[in-house]
């Protein structure tokens, strides 16, 4: 079986597995896990956002939680203040994140290298502090609770999120749509431009790619992915809180993206799944399980910088001469 066929088979198995999961889990009497998988899909969108920037465009953002937070508050505020319907609220949440990413990105992508990582943290910290202190609007640390509107109504019957299985399929539908759009983008000419900019921005600009615009559009798309995750998370928990905008949440997204495999389509899902399942299984047994998470992060970066999906892709492939694991000199000079 060729590599491409194996990939496709794995994708089909994953897709079918996610569709069948609620039925199987209910049959086995473990409905608790339905919500865990739903949560994994939501958080994987935040990881996908960090992954798009780092893996495809080469910009390490430590501030994606900001756009996650805008997605959350877009949903929460539009439902509580305007009585928005389910899909309207979802779209408003994503648009809020996109608008913020468009403004922040226009400034942030002027910088690269470490400066980019730092300014993304600065933006998210500014809005984190603002959200924490304007309690009348955001609820600050306590957050805002609301009741989710029905997903669809036909006359008297309506589909609501109160049923975990319905909720699961709604989240699955939106997340799958996000991954589909992401897949189409990275395979498009724009996606090739992303990779050209990542590999060598000077050469990319010499062949006529507008480097600034390419980075900006990637930043906006990443904002939309994070916003979709935040909007879904708000609807999932019927709750929005400023505490999700802190930089530790952004850091976790980067960790999931890198453990899963930067620059791979499903890496974020794999990374989020592995680490969230690890948390669910271990945290009950061992209070200080974060010690192990920290160690895993360090070990993955040192020994498998391509992540789990990168390791999967490498199985069966000939080792390439100028491969990514060619030993490089420790303490290389910073580009000036």
């Amino acid at each position, binding site marked *: 079986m060729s590599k491409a066929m194996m990939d496709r088979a794995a994708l089909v198995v994953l897709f079918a597995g996610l569709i069948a999961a609620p039925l199987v889990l209910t049959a086995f009497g473990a409905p608790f896990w339905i919500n865990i998988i739903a949560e994994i899909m939501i958080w994987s969108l935040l990881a996908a956002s960090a992954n798009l920037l780092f893996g495809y465009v080469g910009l390490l953002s430590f501030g994606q939680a900001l756009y996650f937070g805008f997605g959350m508050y877009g949903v929460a505020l539009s439902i509580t203040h305007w009585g928005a319907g389910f899909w309207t609220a979802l779209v408003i949440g994503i648009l809020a994140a996109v608008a913020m990413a468009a403004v922040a990105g226009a*400034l942030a992508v002027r910088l690269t290298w470490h400066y980019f990582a730092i300014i993304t943290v600065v933006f998210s910290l500014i809005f984190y*502090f603002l959200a924490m202190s304007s309690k009348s609007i955001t609820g600050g640390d306590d957050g805002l609770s609301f009741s989710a509107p029905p997903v669809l109504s036909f006359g008297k019957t309506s589909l609501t999120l109160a049923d975990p299985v319905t909720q699961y399929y709604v989240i699955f539908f939106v997340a799958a749509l996000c991954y589909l759009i992401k897949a189409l983008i990275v395979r498009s000419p724009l996606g090739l431009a992303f990779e050209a900019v990542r590999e060598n921005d000077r050469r990319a600009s010499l062949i006529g790619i507008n480097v600034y615009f390419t980075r900006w559009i990637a930043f906006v798309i990443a904002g939309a992915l994070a916003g979709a995750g935040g909007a879904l998370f708000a609807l999932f928990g019927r709750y929005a809180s400023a505490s999700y905008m802190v930089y530790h949440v952004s850091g976790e997204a980067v960790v999931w993206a890198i453990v899963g495999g930067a620059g791979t389509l499903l890496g974020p899902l794999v990374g989020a799944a592995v680490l969230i399942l690890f948390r669910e299984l271990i945290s009950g047994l061992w*209070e200080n399980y974060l010690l192990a998470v920290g160690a895993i992060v360090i070990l993955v970066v040192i020994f498998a910088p391509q992540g789990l999906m990168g390791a999967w892709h490498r199985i069966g492939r000939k080792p390439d001469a100028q491969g990514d694991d060619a030993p*490089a000199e420790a303490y290389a000079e910073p580009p000036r």
Partner: protein
Amino acid sequence: MDLVFALAINGLVWGLIIALIALGLSIIFGLLDVINVAHGDFFMVGTVVGLIVAERTGSFWLALAIVPLIGFLLGLVVERFVIRPSARLASLTIVTTFGLSMILQEGVRATFGAQPRRMAAPVQGTVPLFGVDYEIYRLVAALFSVACLLLFFVFLNRTKLGTWIRAVRHDHETATALGIPVVRVCAFTFALGTALALVGGAIAAPITTVEFRTGVDILPFCFMAVVIGGLGNLQGTIAAAVLLSVMEGLVTSVADPTMARVASLAVMCAVLLVRPHGLFAGATR
């Protein structure tokens, strides 16, 4: 007016302590090109170890002498097993140090406990200072920080090792060609930066709360100082730490502390966009 003055003095004292920690961050960045996200947690480890050693031995001053040694050893271990293996990709060190920060915080929570504690100042009492009764210990802490900063610059400019550090910072390749053990100098510098963070933690322990999360608040402030001062510009870092801290103290007299922090972040944002090499770039470049 007295209140404004007290807040400004507080800002100055705190700024001098932060300068010590930010200086550690700055030399690590300048030499190794590593953004150390765990630096705030090194500070936190300093407060915790300082408290424990002072309680066990009964002498705060002994703790202040021991903590930097522990920090130096911790730095050597971390550099060898976390930083050096991941240093070939600069942006990945942000991720490994993030993992390190998880380990440090969780490790302290597991051993020291999650309960915040306070440490009694080794020097009690107040002195009248321009009409305000000011805690003596804070002045002692500020003087100690100034002494450490001076000592650091004497070391950097007057010793062979300091010259090596400056040479490596200037040009890795030439330094290697001249026979300077670059990797060992890098390891030493990381350990020195860690020791600065820990000693800053020990001296700040009686002023702040001692718990596993303290580093989370300190880190953004240190980064602001390092960025506004110019990445890798040591004197700039110190000036920026003091300026920012005094500014936050003054803003706190008219608005709440959160707004003061937002104001500093806005300043940092402007500096990053307009003068990415720092406020004082013209002086050194």
